[in-house]
């Protein structure tokens, strides 16, 4: 069965510092990977998808099939980046069924 692991429950960085939120997965097929974000008092929302290969709010994530990782990165953290971040995986042909990690709370301090 597929699994998504986010090893850090809490990540605290200073404003302007680089950010890396770790995500590892286990899946025997070719997965589709996502990062979802939940800001305070807001709904869970899509941040980015690996197949889009786009940068959203300065965040990027590269799928590394060799290391089965999909880490989320941003070169310079901003206060508004403070939120809960979830990595999620969809199986090939998964039909919108996502497997989520346990999430990492990012706190950007001034």
């Amino acid at each position, binding site marked *: 069965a597929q699994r998504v692991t986010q090893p850090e429950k809490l990540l605290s960085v200073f404003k302007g510092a680089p950010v890396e939120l770790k995500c590892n997965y286990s899946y025997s097929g070719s997965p*589709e990977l996502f990062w979802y974000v939940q800001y305070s008092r807001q*709904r869970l*929302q*899509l941040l980015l998808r690996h197949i889009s290969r786009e940068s959203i709010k300065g965040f990027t994530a590269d799928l590394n099939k060799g290391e089965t990782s999909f880490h989320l990165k941003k070169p310079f953290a901003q206060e508004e980046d403070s939120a809960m971040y*979830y990595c999620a995986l969809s199986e090939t042909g998964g*039909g*919108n*069924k*996502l497997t*989520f990690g346990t999430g990492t709370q990012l706190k950007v301090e001034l």
Partner: protein
Amino acid sequence: DAGVTQSPTHLIKTRGQQVTLRCSPKSGHDTVSWYQQALGQGPQFIFQYYEEEERQRGNFPDRFSGHQFPNYSSELNVNALLLGDSALYLCASSFPSGANVLTFGAGSRLTVL
């Protein structure tokens, strides 16, 4: 567009009771998925409805059942509630081939006493 709407927002039940949660998908979406999010955990897939049928199901017992109506809205029913069913229940809507891009509702917080 109000996006995905869920009701009720909060509810309290006792063990053994039954509960029904409701979801209206985002305008234009016709697929509804339900997730359970326990405290400190990520959302866990319960099931998905499309064309009024359950299309996929996660690892949840038969006490969890659902329905989708012709207007694409959906209900989640949980019978014989257990303390462990206390969680935030999230509804998410999408297109059937929406490349797994889900729009989530705010959730229904269920507390079982």
